[in-house]
């Protein structure tokens, strides 16, 4: 398993990320994590003083570059961050110190940097606040498989449905991989039914 404290640059996917740009918009933390080289290449020099317009220009350039290759989720996060940074009132801008600490759990206040350093979360909701980083950490281990361990017997209906849906989605992927289209269609219908039950 990769170490929780190690995080790859979202641009080059090779070096460790040391520049973390974070903005909170509508209560959600949006982040971009880069290595120093990629940050500099994008016109961001975290080591020196930086004007806001320079930062914006650099981030915008970076965003355009990343847009070609980054997943939808990250694009939306970057978009939200740029929108917020462009606000006349400054929005909920964080200090440079705050940016270096990465996202912050809205429930207990634990920052990603603190969590990595201590190798501890502050509360269970930290996992939601740092979901992107947790996925990045888990993906090489789980290889996209749904959780297959001992689930609690007492579980809210919504969570139980989500578990079942994720299990069916995994089965669906496997069925498609084996070109079992009839079975895949059945699984797809069951997933749709579950989503309808949950009001998705």
């Amino acid at each position, binding site marked *: *398993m990769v170490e*929780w404290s190690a995080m790859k640059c979202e641009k080059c996917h090779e070096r460790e990320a040391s520049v973390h740009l974070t903005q909170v918009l509508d209560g959600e933390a949006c982040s971009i994590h880069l290595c120093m080289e990629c940050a500099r290449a994008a016109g961001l020099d975290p080591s020196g003083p930086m004007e806001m317009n320079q930062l914006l220009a650099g981030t915008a350039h970076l965003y355009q570059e990343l847009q070609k290759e980054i997943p939808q989720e990250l694009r939306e996060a970057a978009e939200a961050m740029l929108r917020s940074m462009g606000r006349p009132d400054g929005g909920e801008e964080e200090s440079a110190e705050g940016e270096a600490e990465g996202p912050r759990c809205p429930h*207990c206040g*634990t920052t990603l940097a603190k*969590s990595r350093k*201590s*190798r*501890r*979360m*502050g*509360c*269970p909701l930290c*996992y939601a606040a740092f979901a992107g980083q*947790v996925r990045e*950490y*888990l993906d090489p*281990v*789980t*290889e996209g*498989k*749904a*959780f*297959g*361990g*001992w*689930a*609690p*017997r*007492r*579980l809210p209906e919504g*969570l139980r449905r*989500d*578990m079942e849906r*994720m299990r069916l989605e995994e089965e669906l992927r496997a069925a498609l991989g084996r070109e079992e289209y009839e079975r895949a269609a059945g699984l797809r219908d069951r997933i749709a039914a579950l989503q309808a039950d949950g009001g998705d």
Partner: protein
Amino acid sequence: MSGSREPLVFLPAQSWERALPNDPDDPVVFSSRATVRRDLAGHAYPGSATAADREEVRLLLHKVLREIGGRSLRRRWKNGEWREIARVEGLSTPEMERWWDEAETFLFGRHLTALVNTEDHLLFRSTWRGLHLREAVQAVREADAEASERLDYAFSPEFGHLTASPDRMGTGFCAEVCLFLPAIKFARAVEPEAWDRVLRGLTACNLAVDSGERDMPYLRIWNRQTAGKSEERLEEEVEAAAKELAEKEMAAREAIPKHDALALLWEDRWARAKATATVAVVMDAQEEMELLSWLRWGTLIGRGLVPVELLDLILMRDQPGIWRFGDSRSQARAKRLEMLMETFSEQNLGELERLFRRKPPRKKCAKRAAAAEDGKAPEGDAP
């Protein structure tokens, strides 16, 4: 560790260390242990929580664990001396030491313990002598299932159990086996490059000095990975590695006497260990574990005089984890040897006396003893 010369009163077998005494049916595997860590939704983890939060969690878990058959040891908590025992017995953790008043331990029969407010809110642990990982896993599974009917665990369909440390999220499960592998070390029966294959991605730790060195007589192996596999799968991997190592160990033990050079070397090491045990004044942890290993091995093959249970008792009392609390290194060394000798004398076994305590010279040997004091000791009298 207290400075008292009184022997510690040990609780019924519950802890990892207490399970060390030799299983007569298993000369290689000391013990097997399964652990699951759980946390409660809506509560900060103990390390980030306030004392009031931890107390709230403790009260909630106290009620539930009593309902499912746990016996609380909280009343004993008030006794400072008992805390020392709890440390030795593995019934507390360093985290619990920090917030002792809001922590609690429960016993469930002989093999299962629940610890409240450690690093996580709840920890179930089952320990068995010998290789009984399946039984250990079953015990924690049943307790966990019962508790989960009454509690709202911090759980995500995507990530699994949300433990305080992301390194343990997913199953929050750990399967461990502690092995005695002196022949593998002595005969180098597992080549350095072969260890990775044997261990199948598991983690190994030298029990003696808590290091990652794998080619050691006392070895603990466990799964570091807690996500992406089921608990049963993780257990199978640990068990498979333990079985393979046990087979290699037994093969090496049988092969050594048939190999002249190795057999001679073995005799030499065994004699040195006996002599060192007799005259040593200061011993560090590594040296002591080597010594215990030699004495233990000798007894297992019918050569030694020291009961294996006694050697394991010393090992149990003297693990590095115990010495981490409070003592400086020099104090620890002095106490270690004191305790070693004290333990042997406590047992008052004649054979041990012969081995570990030199008798005063008899009259007819007085001349010989005087010569020994002058530095003319007969060969073999001292290392």
